[in-house]
């Protein structure tokens, strides 16, 4: 029971991380397309500035929970996916620094260096997180000792890459919606004009991914065994459609929430399909790491549950407060008082 609770919390933490960091990873990737002038690029940084580091708290939490609740899974995941996770880490390092350094020197070349760090540092994590999760859905070559028998290039199979492209598109839509919510004028109009195209690409990719999952994974086994679970998929698809409806009505906040639900639903679709496996083995299903054979002791899980129930509401409360403080749209006048983040 405790194992199942932590399995679900593990999935929810990843889902919330993708939902939150998704908008700033997507917007960072999109910046060169939507922001033409230096002022516009500064505004793009400005609308992510107060939030991006709060969002990445959830990545640390998701990683920490994997370590504390399922140490065997953590060992296999972080050793097996070592190169991919290190690439994500370095991308996030240079991306984080770009927020602090970009406006410190007033030279186009200096700014271009940090803008490049932001774009690459946003795109790579989006792509590689998608590649990593699609490969987890598909199964990793894990032997009987829980050791990963592959390389970085094992992960770059067609299904893995499809997952990467799906994540990039999910985050691009999410980021463009965030820009539409938080700005007005040219930036807002460009985001609004781009959104129907991005959404159409996302729809095509989502359909392809769901069909490919039928062939490349065993995710649907849980769903066919318990058809009520198809509700998760139905809600996710409905949310995806509602994004387009709200874009057409120019209801940007609602479209952003529909996009949030789409990202959470996509993640949970995979996680629920995996249950009880955290890392399926593509060599032999018996070698898979599950919520039961890779978990910590029941006492650890109980203590962690008490800690999580105490601190997660505090984290949610302060992050909600940040969103409340910075609830207004940003314009050029906001840049005058900027002290940097």
């Amino acid at each position: 029971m405790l194992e199942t609770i932590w399995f679900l919390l593990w999935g929810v933490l990843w889902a919330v991380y993708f939902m939150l960091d998704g908008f700033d990873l997507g917007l960072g990737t999109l910046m060169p397309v939507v922001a033409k002038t230096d002022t516009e690029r500064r505004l793009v940084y400005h609308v992510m500035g107060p939030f991006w580091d709060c969002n990445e708290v959830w990545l640390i939490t998701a990683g920490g929970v994997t370590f504390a609740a399922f140490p065997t899974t953590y060992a296999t995941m972080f050793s097996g996916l070592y190169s991919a996770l290190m690439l994500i880490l370095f991308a996030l390092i240079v991306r984080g620094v770009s927020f602090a350094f970009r406006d410190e020197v007033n030279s186009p070349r200096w700014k271009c260096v940090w803008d490049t760090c932001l774009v690459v540092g946003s795109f790579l994590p989006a792509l590689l997180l998608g590649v990593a999760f699609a490969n987890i859905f598909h199964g990793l070559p894990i032997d009987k000792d829980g050791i990963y028998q592959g390389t970085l290039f094992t992960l770059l199979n067609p299904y893995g890459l499809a997952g990467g492209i799906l994540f990039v598109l999910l985050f691009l839509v999410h980021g463009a919606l965030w820009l539409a919510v938080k700005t007005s004028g040219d930036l807002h109009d460009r985001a609004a004009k781009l959104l129907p195209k991005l959404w159409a690409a996302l729809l095509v990719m989502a359909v392809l991914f769901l069909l490919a999952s039928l062939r490349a994974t065993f995710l649907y086994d849980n769903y066919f065994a318990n058809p009520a679970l198809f509700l998760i998929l139905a809600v996710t698809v409905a949310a995806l459609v509602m994004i387009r409806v709200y874009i057409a009505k120019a209801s940007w906040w609602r479209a952003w929430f529909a996009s949030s639900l789409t990202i959470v639903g996509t993640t949970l679709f995979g996680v629920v399909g995996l249950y009880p496996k955290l890392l399926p083995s593509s060599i032999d299903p018996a070698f898979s790491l599950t919520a039961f054979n890779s978990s910590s002791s029941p006492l650890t899980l109980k203590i962690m549950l008490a800690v999580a129930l105490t601190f997660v509401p505090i984290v949610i409360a302060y992050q909600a407060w940040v969103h409340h403080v910075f609830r207004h749209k940003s314009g050029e006048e906001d840049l005058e008082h900027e002290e940097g983040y």
Partner: protein
Amino acid sequence: MKTKDAVSPIAASQVGTTLAAFIVVYALLGAVAFYLIAKHVRRGPEPVRGEG
């Protein structure tokens, strides 16, 4: 438990690559940070703004 018994099953070349990357990236970021600190120090404190 000795270090050699606890080490992860990762190729030495992979660990070497990331170690080198950490050294290079942090040396560069450190150099940039020192440059910016020096720049701020030379410019001196900004006049107090508003009600201060």
